């Protein structure tokens, strides 16, 4: 657990300044400036096409893959400008990402979760077993798959694959965990179990949670940002956002369900 001592403790985990993202001619995100503190759960809410997913993509330089995606502004992770890192793969290894639609890689369940540790150089069988079990337990999937770890991960049901994706992201032992509407394919009970896990994980990592479920942000996030029309309208402590002490009328309308 990170103790708040030393100079770097005051530094935010994520420091985003003037982030603008364009795809060809169209602007997906416009001049977003915000900070995410270490070991907090930072929620991002907002309607579709608000730029939430583009924002996440910029954080681990997935934009490198996307042709025509243009990123301006600066993103600092743990004080380091990510645009200038010499080893982008090391950067991505320290950031876990869960995409909205489950992507079970065409490997066995075990190998799906063991992939990241193996790429990191973990070879010892016992150690791998331990990581796989711990991550699957945390993703609330262990009991359902412990007897068939050799089966193909891509053959699991949608909800199970989503939890497998979460387990895989955890296996990276990330500094920063990006969740993009992780509960879209999961039933409410499992969602609750995973939310409990996320609350505990906060002690080990920083979490950015993009969600369509306003109540999910309220349950989990310490602070929440409201994105609308490619802009970050405001960032506030989640409680304030929901108790009505917001600065912007549009935010109030959205959290109270008066939008579309």
């Amino acid at each position, binding site marked *: 657990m990170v103790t708040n001592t030393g100079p770097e403790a005051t530094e935010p985990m994520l420091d985003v300044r003037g982030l603008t993202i364009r795809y060809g001619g169209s602007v997906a995100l416009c001049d977003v400036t915000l900070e995410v503190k270490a070991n907090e759960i930072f929620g991002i809410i907002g309607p579709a096409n608000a730029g939430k997913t583009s924002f996440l993509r910029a954080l681990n330089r997935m934009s490198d893959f996307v042709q025509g995606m243009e990123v301006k502004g600066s993103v600092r992770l*743990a*004080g*380091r400008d990510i645009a200038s890192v*010499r*080893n982008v*793969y090391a950067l991505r290894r*320290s950031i876990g990402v869960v995409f909205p639609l489950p992507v079970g890689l065409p490997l066995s369940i075990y190998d799906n979760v063991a992939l990241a540790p193996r790429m990191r150089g973990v070879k010892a069988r016992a150690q791998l077993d331990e990581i796989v079990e711990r991550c699957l337990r945390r993703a609330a999937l262990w009991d359902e798959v412990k007897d068939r770890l050799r089966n193909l991960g891509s053959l699991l049901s949608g909800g199970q694959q989503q939890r497998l994706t979460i387990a895989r992201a955890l296996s990276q032992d990330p*500094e920063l965990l990006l969740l993009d509407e992780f509960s879209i394919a999961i039933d409410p009970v499992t969602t609750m179990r995973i939310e409990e896990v996320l609350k505990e994980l906060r002690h080990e990592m920083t979490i950015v949670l993009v969600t369509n479920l306003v109540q999910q942000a309220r349950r989990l996030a310490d602070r929440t940002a409201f994105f609308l029309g490619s802009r970050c309208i405001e960032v506030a402590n989640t409680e304030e956002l929901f108790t009505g002490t917001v600065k912007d009328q549009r935010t109030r309308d959205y959290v109270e369900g008066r939008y579309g």
Partner: protein
Amino acid sequence: MRRAAAAAEFDRRDASWWMDRIAQGCVFAGGISAIVFIVGILAFIATQGMEFAANRLSWTEFFGSIAWRPNGHPPQYGALALIAGTASITAVAMALVVPLSLGAAIYIGEFARGKTREWLKILIELLAAIPSVVWGVIGLNVMGPLMTDVFGVPSGLNLLNAGIILGLMAAPIMTTIAEDALKAVPDTYREAAEALGATKWQVVLRVVLPHARPGLSAAGLLGVGRAVGETIAVLMASGHAITVPESLFDSVRSLTATIASELGETAHGDDHYQALFVLGMLLFAITFAINLTADSIVRGIRRKKA
């Protein structure tokens, strides 16, 4: 403390970073060498025929005359009949094989189940393993006599014979690629359409085929490429007569067969030798145009989807 360590890690180029660089270099070398070979072959063909093409060949004769008499006095180099030969054989072959292999692919991919499907796939792939000279013999000794008996035509070695042989030769590869294209259509699409009450045929016609169209076009154009380039079987089955065909039962001669049969009788570097290489350049240009077309079709469809 952990955060600072991580930040330092971002700048450390570890073994896997270097491995990535090395692998990228190797793959790049592989890709470049393919291009080097292509350019090398093109340069070879061009230099072999260039001097003649630039100085003594009349292009109006080459593309406008049907008289290919390299040994005549004076020699004549009209390639029109040869171009017509290649074009007509390819057209006949495609007219026969496109419905055939598309049907086979749809049957294997969408309708056949279990063992039938597996056996069919194996048999069709086996068909691709027959050497082209064997196809030539079938054309020469089986199809030829059969055609004189059935249709009562003077020569059984003709356009139709060569077209059928070529079509059968191109069928396996076209079927296999077309079937791959159908298989690449996600099952969720089929299920979504079936849930609307679509019959199997409606699913194929309205959902599977439209989605698989780029792959199917690629299969078709690959077949065309195969047909244009095939030599020995065409030489044996087509009758090898220099005419612009007026019916399916006329004997024809293709560009490839001309090169194969005449190159041996030329002296290295003389006009006839060079003229054959001009034919080679023409073939190269045709194949190149076909591939370019295929590429732009696939690209165009991809862009529309994006």
